[in-house]
């Protein structure tokens, strides 16, 4: 028996169908909490795939573990839900085998920066042509509210009742320092902003790093909430030079919700291009 085949799902699918985005959705209803920022991100990814007219069978989505890890289950493409922290090596293995595929890695803050943090600099420096969607809600949600690598200092969590003693990481600054050829930040409450960045990230030849800030509506009621984030978004000014590493790093170090493309190097060859040129 498939308990998900209920009228609620039918209504949901009907509503989606009317919007014309059914193609990339499966019969599996997302298991995220009502109000979760991941719905918005999913919506933006699906719409971007539609806009780019990507063939469903040529899209691979690889995820790790956590709330973000469930993402491929809800998308009608080739989805691979793997183990905690390893979406990047596996996504890289796919892309290096089948260049014609569009490969997404989806990871939460724990997945990409905690347990899998060691893979990030190396996938970046190889410039493998994949896109990393970093769903950053600054908390371990699926295990119910423990401190993550991006939980703000002193925030009380279920593993640090008296406040987080560990200084949080700065994902955008890290990606820049590692030498990523495409670095952007998005806000889960801004679908149009996400679509714009996602489109450019997917078409970028090389590794694209997208830091997506989103609240966890269940386990963080105080710091990173819709209420506190809405209205604070600052899109990057058009005068910003995306080719300037120094300006990008300066911008990244500003502790505000600045969104858009921080840095892009369109000239740098992707890993397969380098391999073909130098190794054979």
């Amino acid at each position, binding site marked *: 028996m498939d308990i998900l085949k209920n009228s609620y799902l039918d209504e949901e699918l009907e509503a989606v169908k009317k919007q014309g985005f059914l193609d990339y959705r*499966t019969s599996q209803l997302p298991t995220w909490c009502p109000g979760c920022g991941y719905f918005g991100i999913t919506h933006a990814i699906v719409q971007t795939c539609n806009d780019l007219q990507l063939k469903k069978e040529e899209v691979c989505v690889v995820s790790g573990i956590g709330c973000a890890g469930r993402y491929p289950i809800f998308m009608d493409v080739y*989805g691979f*839900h*793997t183990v905690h922290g390893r979406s990047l*090596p596996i*996504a*890289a293995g796919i892309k*290096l*085998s*089948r260049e014609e595929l569009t490969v997404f890695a989806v990871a939460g803050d724990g997945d990409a920066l905690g347990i899998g943090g060691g893979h990030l600099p190396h996938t970046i420096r190889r410039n493998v042509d994949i896109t990393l969607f970093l769903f950053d809600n600054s908390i371990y949600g699926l295990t119910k509210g423990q401190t993550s690598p991006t939980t703000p200092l002193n925030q009380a969590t279920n593993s640090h009742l008296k406040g987080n003693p560990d200084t949080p990481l700065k994902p955008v600054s890290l990606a820049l320092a590692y030498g990523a050829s495409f670095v952007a930040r998005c806000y889960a409450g801004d679908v149009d902003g996400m679509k714009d960045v996602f489109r450019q990230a997917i078409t970028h030849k090389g590794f694209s790093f997208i830091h997506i800030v989103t609240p966890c509506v269940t386990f963080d009621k105080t710091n990173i909430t819709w209420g506190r984030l809405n209205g604070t978004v600052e899109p990057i000014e058009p005068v910003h030079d995306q080719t300037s590493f120094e300006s990008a790093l300066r911008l990244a170090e500003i502790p505000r919700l600045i969104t858009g493309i921080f840095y892009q190097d369109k000239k740098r060859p992707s890993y397969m291009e380098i391999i073909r040129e130098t190794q054979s």
Partner: protein
Amino acid sequence: MADVDIVIEICGSAGDGTISSGEILSRFMSSQGFEIMSFDSYPSEIRGFGKCVAHSRISNKKVLSPGKYTDILIALNNAHAISQLHTLRETGIVIFDNKPPNYLEEDQSIAGWIEPGMISYGIPLLNLSQKASGSARGRNMVALGALAAIFGIDGEQMKSAIHARYAKKNKVVIDSNINSFAEGFTWAQQHVTKVDSYTFGHSKPKPSKEKKAIINGNQAVAQAAIDSGLHLYAGYPITPATKIMEIVSRELPKKGGVMVQTEDEISAIGHVIGAGYAGKRAMTATSGPGFCLMSELANLAVMAEVPAVLVNSQRGGPSTGLPTRNEQSDLNIALFGGSGDSPRIVLAPTSVNECYTCTTLAFYLAEKYQTLVIILLDFFLSNSIRNITTPVPPKANQLNSNVAPTKTALKDYKRYKLTKNGISPRAIPGTPGGMCISTGLEHSEHGHPRYDRNTHPAMTEKRFNKIQGALSEAPKPRWVGPKKNVDIGVIAWGSTAGSAHEAVLNARKEGINVAFMSTVILSPFPVKEIKKFSEACSRILVPELNYTGQFANVLSPHLSRSIERLNMVTGLPISAEDILEKIRDMAR
């Protein structure tokens, strides 16, 4: 034709050219038609004057093991060679430098350690090297020259072999080596009075018509992987598996493949799983510590049903253990490592030749059965050099063994469809209509996460049943000796099997009623054949290189006989003599 079966050891300190002179000797003797099995041991430190030993068994009969006792020991370094004397036969021969640069106390020179019955030939290695090349670096070649002169090896032909070995170097290097060799050869001809009976001269075998490849286990694995259509290799350097990566890195890009040197072993197996998922053949090779890191993702290959070939060349453990020593102690982790009930295919070649055939089989099985295939090598097998008949590359129909779904099946595609043989047709990304979710969570036939009481039992059973098919595709266990009324049955696996085989043959010559069995497939386990063998034998002996008898423990529940164990953890390969001694004990 007289039997020739001579073990030569060249012993020196790092930098003496020990290993390279051993390699020249082995290659040359192979080209002369002899069977060879060579094995080098060296310290895990690159510098620091550690002990190096180039061990080579040269015979005009089939060679199954490296040989425990040395017949001829060439001492390039006194202290190290003295510490190697314990392997010299009681009637063995020592070639040493009788004009060392400094005065040596009697116990500092190997000459002072020669026991009655042994024979020593003093050659002024350093003086002749300086005369020939102006440096001390030709001592190894002087020694080879003397060896050739004393034991009836064709000096002219060997000279051309040395020339070939250094052909890519500059003229000075070539000349110094050739001249040093010639100097040693001539000096020995003029000054050495031969008092032993060892010779290669009268027993030269007929050169075989078969084309021979002189390779070690690592080279065999790398070549087999490339011949099997390898697309992606990912790995992290670790002794004794590193050489596989180095060879692949040179050959694979020429074929349009990719070698990724990853940041760690976790990433390596991750890349392999990604490539396997994308429908390409991929492999990683590691040793114990790296194998431990790979456990979690290796289990993902099992659960998500993705092909992955993982080579583990065992060394001494646990932890960092003994990086340059031999052991067979990763059997437990290979068979049972990781969480949950996790069936996988495990192959353990017993010879360099089987390193090739097991690797081609591993790719075929991994793809067909959509699972993890582990190839267990060990330090000895990785590094032992054999001259084998050039292997036959896999046939075209073995290069793609994926079972793809039919068009009808794609209408309601079930990635993990429960089928009779457990194999669910697999849609490779890019196949229209095959979109699905693959996951490490327990899942329904569609791949959707399910934790209900019916799904997990059905899927667990499927994963176990599925790999049973591999048993009929792997080589049957090898049975040597009588088929019934056997007194002692020896069952061995991995590199130990060669020594066990030889021990059994020799024991039979001594009139002991003994038989031998080995199997390359360890999971799924060939219960039927092993049972049959054990029922034909009154007693069972299992020799292996680990403390607890890991293979004996696997066998034990399947046998009605109790098992006699021979467990060694000296870090050295087990010898035929050790096993023969045990068989004699049992037969008494």
